[in-house]
């Protein structure tokens, strides 16, 4: 019976669009030795390693963490954490939740950044965090990161939708991927967001991608219903939602996309950015 289930399971996955397993191996580094065994954590044990922070990783479909600790003759330590998520979007999502726009960025993997004794980077479905202790220079972390990136293989690229965000006023490296419950509503699934600042005004743009138009219509209906403004028919056009928690939100639905502006009380500026967003999307 179990064998039959196993066979069925294999076929289910063959039909699915699952991401292939990364046969990642930790590299060797001249002058450094692995200290202890490589540790592996799964969704049920991640708490043992990162405590309550695990919840957010689980929300981004975390699959597995491998941890290696290296030590040199001078008793300096480097810890390499390789978090693997289900999809590149998930990996970008958790990476984007933790990156700080003000950090020092580099081009390791798809993108990386460093702070004192820390270097984090994104590559495909992996989010890698490298931490040094008593290291002589930050360059050590960079050389570790480059080798780990090599062993991870294809680095992939940032989600293509990010290129649609208008450039004017965008805060560099502020783009995020929210995996579900966008804006605090269960009927809004995932979204990409970016922060903006124009002459001291801070606001946010967002975009949601759907499988088809009926999903878009359904979502607009639910959002209107939430604010007591249900319509019998919704069409591909602009909407102003009087959100009880977020204030006025202007949205545009076109094709399989809905995009909008948050935290901006100036209607002219809202309109300008919605238009800019639409123009960038057309180039996609």
């Amino acid at each position, binding site marked *: 019976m*179990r*064998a039959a*289930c*196993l066979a069925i*399971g*294999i076929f*289910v*996955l*063959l039909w699915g669009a*699952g991401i*292939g*397993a990364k*046969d990642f191996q930790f590299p060797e580094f001249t002058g450094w030795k692995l200290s*202890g065994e490589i*540790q*592996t954590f*799964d*969704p*049920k*044990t991640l*708490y*043992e*390693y*990162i*405590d*309550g*922070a695990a*919840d*957010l990783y*689980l*929300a981004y479909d975390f*699959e*597995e963490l491998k*941890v290696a600790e290296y030590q040199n003759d001078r*008793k300096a*330590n480097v810890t390499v954490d390789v978090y693997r998520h289900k999809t590149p979007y998930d990996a970008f999502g958790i990476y984007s*939740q*933790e*990156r*700080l726009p003000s950090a020092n960025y580099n081009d390791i993997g798809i993108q990386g950044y460093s702070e004192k004794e820390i270097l*984090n980077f994104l590559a495909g479905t992996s989010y890698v965090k490298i931490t040094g*202790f008593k290291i002589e220079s930050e360059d050590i972390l960079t050389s570790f990161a480059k080798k780990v990136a090599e062993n991870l293989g294809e680095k992939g690229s940032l989600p293509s939708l990010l290129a649609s965000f208008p450039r004017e006023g965008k805060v560099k490296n502020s783009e*995020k991927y929210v995996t*579900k*419950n966008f*804006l*605090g*509503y*269960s009927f809004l699934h995932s979204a990409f967001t970016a922060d903006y600042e124009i002459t001291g005004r801070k606001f946010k743009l967002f975009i949601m991608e759907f499988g088809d138009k009926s999903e878009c219509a359904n979502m607009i209906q639910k959002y209107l219903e939430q604010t007591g403004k249900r319509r019998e028919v919704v069409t591909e056009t602009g909407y102003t939602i009087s959100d009880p*928690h*977020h204030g006025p939100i202007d949205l545009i639905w076109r094709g399989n996309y809905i995009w909008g502006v948050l935290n901006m009380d100036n209607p002219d500026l809202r309109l300008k950015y919605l238009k800019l967003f639409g123009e960038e999307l057309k180039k996609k």
Partner: protein
Amino acid sequence: MGKKMIDRRNFMKSTLAGLGGFFVLPSIDKKQEIKIVEAKGKERKLVYRTLGKTGLKLPVINMGVMLTDNPNLIRAALDSGILLLDTAYGYMGGRNEEVIGEVIKGRPRESYFIGSKVNLPQNRTTGLYIEGATTEEFLKRLDLSLKRLGIDYVDILYQHGVTRKESVAFEPVLKAFDKAKKDGKIRFTGISTHGNEPEVIHAVTDSKAYDVILTAYNFKQKHYAEVRNAIAKASQAGIGIVGMKAIRGGYQQPPTVRNITASLKWILQDPNVHTVVTGFTTFEQMEIDLSIMEDLTLTEPEKIELQKEASLPGLYCQGCRQCLGQCVQNLPIPDLMRAYMYIYDYRNLSMAQDLVVSLGLPFEVCGDCSFCPVKCSIGFKVKEKIQDVVKIRGVPSEFVA
């Protein structure tokens, strides 16, 4: 007869019959009060309890902020009567504290409470602190937390993620707490634990060095009765008890508990739990929590549902590791059971295959054994599952990727 007794005892652990005192708890009436809270024109009567010797009066549910960076959700929580925001130095790489800082900016400092946590380098196998875990590092991290939050002090500062009694009395942290208290950077000291909780809680009570314990506590813990007893002793010693993981990811998809409301009410039946932090991420979930805060009574259908769920034997290995050393081939049974879970729970064959291959198993697994001596604590037929899961070795990797 002896064998039968062992089997029965193990069976009882995973059934309702083994869950002695599942609902039988002391009266909660004497230890709580009702406060009327008005939010957006709506009046609510929320149940409040006092957080032990800290004297902080808190609603029975507060907000664990770790899963959200939505400032308007946090604002709505505070405006609805929630008082305590629970965060940590490490959540979202520090951004979680920054978002809270944005929300509380301009609010009267006495109108909310902040609980944050600082961790120090630990050996994750032993759970003990390692080199680099110093008073200076702890205080440096606290200062960074305060800067991100934009406040001069936190109400509760927890030593984060403690699983060993040795860490409870770790001198560098205790020194850091003393200094931070003297400098006015923290009001109360705390410890957080979600592994080996009873040992940690007992050590905290004995140490007399802490004001608050933040602990995992839910009806699905195999050792929930031990956690309950440890909490009771700590509470009697005046330590404030904050519950977490009360619904074990109930707001995740798929949820790990079936009835979130009943699960939350279950923990709040314990009068020694003064409040619970939940990681809601939607306004709807927040409303559910607020409605529970108005009425903690477990309804009969909720009780039945909890009983049913508590009595379900686990479908997957609980990781108790009691089977280690029982197999004559010395097979790594917990790892094989994890691979089994990857196949049938996660439906991730590649993860399962990676794991099974990495274990370096003999070619013939279980082949020489007509009788399996392994006794699983929750009654799994271990041999059957192992023989099933090792078949994944023979599947070409391109078919499971």
